[in-house]
């Protein structure tokens, strides 16, 4: 191969190598790039099946602690206000004073969801919970401010019943009497 043959070989192989790069570049320019600017843009996720941060309804919760017992890492902490005899209230009348989930422990395995008899806890579509301390990883669900669990038919039916009977307002008032704020009410 002569001097010019070498030069031609260099040009030819460079062009060959750049063919893939140029084609991808051209696609990115004309049709948009493959990448996402993450904090501003997000990949679409399925809101029904995704196993993200929980959705919960503090008013429908009967504090049966089934979810806490099903949890493989014991990251759910439940307390309800005592009744006249000093025992924690259970069932439809219970007033939640604490429903914390420690997301520094949570595995998002979904074992807490099927046991719930009032279907008030579900895994939701949110997955971002940034914070600087471990305390910020604990979400106080009893204060509200998080999406309400309403994925199933039974949950929707219960919400309607609760609205009709005015139980949302009643429980909110009972919690307020115990000094627990409601950041965003469950009945909208």
């Amino acid at each position, binding site marked *: 191969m002569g001097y010019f043959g070498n030069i031609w070989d260099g040009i030819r192989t460079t062009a060959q190598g750049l063919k893939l790069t140029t084609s991808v570049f051209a696609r990115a320019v004309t049709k948009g790039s493959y990448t996402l600017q993450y904090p501003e843009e997000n990949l679409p996720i399925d809101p029904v099946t995704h196993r993200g941060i929980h959705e919960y309804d503090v008013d429908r919760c009967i504090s049966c602690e089934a979810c806490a017992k099903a949890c493989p890492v014991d990251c759910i902490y439940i307390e309800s206000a005592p009744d006249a005899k000093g025992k924690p209230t259970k069932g439809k009348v219970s007033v939640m004073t604490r429903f914390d989930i420690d997301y520094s422990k949570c595995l998002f395995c*979904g*074992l807490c969801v099927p*046991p719930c008899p009032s279907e008030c806890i579900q895994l939701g579509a949110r997955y971002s919970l940034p914070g600087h301390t471990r305390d910020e990883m604990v979400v106080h669900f009893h204060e509200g401010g998080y999406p309400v669990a309403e994925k199933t038919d039974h949950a929707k039916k219960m919400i309607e019943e609760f609205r009709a009977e005015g139980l949302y307002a009643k429980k909110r008032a009972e919690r307020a009497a115990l000094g627990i704020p409601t950041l965003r009410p469950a009945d909208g």
Partner: protein
Amino acid sequence: MTPVPPEGSVPVAASPAALAAASAHGHGLGAEGFDPESGHMILNMGPSHPSTHGVLRIVLEMDGERIVRATPDIGYLHRGMEKIAEAYGYNKFIPYTDRFDYLAPVANNVGVAMAIESVVGIEVPPRARSLRLSCAELGRLHSHLLGLGCFAMDVGALTVFLYCFRERESIYDFMEALTGARFTVSWTRVGGCARDVPPGWIEGVRRFVQGLPGRVERDVEKMLTTNRIFVDRLKGVGVIPKDVALSYGLTGPVLRASGVEWDLRKERPYLGYEEYDFDVPVGEHGDAYDRYLVRIEEMKQSCKIILQALDRIPEGPITVEDHKISLPVKRSVLTNMEQLIHQFMVVTEGPELAAGERYFGIENPKGELGFYVVTDGTGKPMRLRVRGPSFVTLSCLPHVLKGAMFADVVATLASLDFVMGECDR
């Protein structure tokens, strides 16, 4: 070529002085890193080394570039998994099994669920069986794709790694659609599966699996199989002869690359593997290159199995009807007192399994993943022992690395394709 040890010989270990020198001086470099007795250099590899696939530390005693002794130091990822199983019970243990071989979480899920079921002889419905089989094979593709990608990357071919990850991304998407999580799927339950497949899932997997062998040929094999650098780097490296592989109890692709045709899917069929048509690839020389070839061929066979399985997924339930073991359907719990009690008992006490004990092993991507389960009639196992393939694979490391060049350590480690999450448990 590593010599075969004589009958009854004990695996080599670093001398006490060498180990003391290595552990006393952290990184093991500098003047203190020399074994005063022999003048050999003590070199710590890991625990944070990109090629150790996790947190494996190897204390290498070296004479120049040659390795005199190699002592793996494991346990950095120990989480006490077996004790967790005894403390938390059957269903609660399943999310933990995602963290064994975290490159094929769904295969571990299937393994532990089947082991627990085998103690009392629970037969899952045919639909759950076929789905479990398809997902276990997807797990194999999942693991081998990463195994090949990291293998190529460790010996210097980064592009293959990216191509393999593109394929893995599709498997993540299928897992996300099926279970709601991309990686830690926690998909099986004692007596069935957590969720049924969404619409269109089977067609999606079929399209992906049909195209995969072609893409592997184009993107992986074309770049590596006849690549002179790759072949020269791997042929005759990390040789495990047949008898050594058998004496160490190796399983999976590492054993098959050494020329032993042993695959639990053929030898002790479970999940109905005997009904499927597939071959077990076997290597000849037991070197790193053969292990690469075996994994490539296994992926093609997995694709073949998945295609057959997807064609015969029957309709029907995905959990057993006995609700003392599996959770009842939610609608019946809300209307039926008996089912509510069953649900309460399964959640708080755990599935009701009669007393018994059984060892059950499945062919995981890395080898035989076995569970020895002792039940005592309560909701928690009395003992759950895990036999992880990576731990056994790593046990032959002192033998394989003895006499090798230092640069071959990385190639050998990558070709053994172990994962520390399962080794340390």
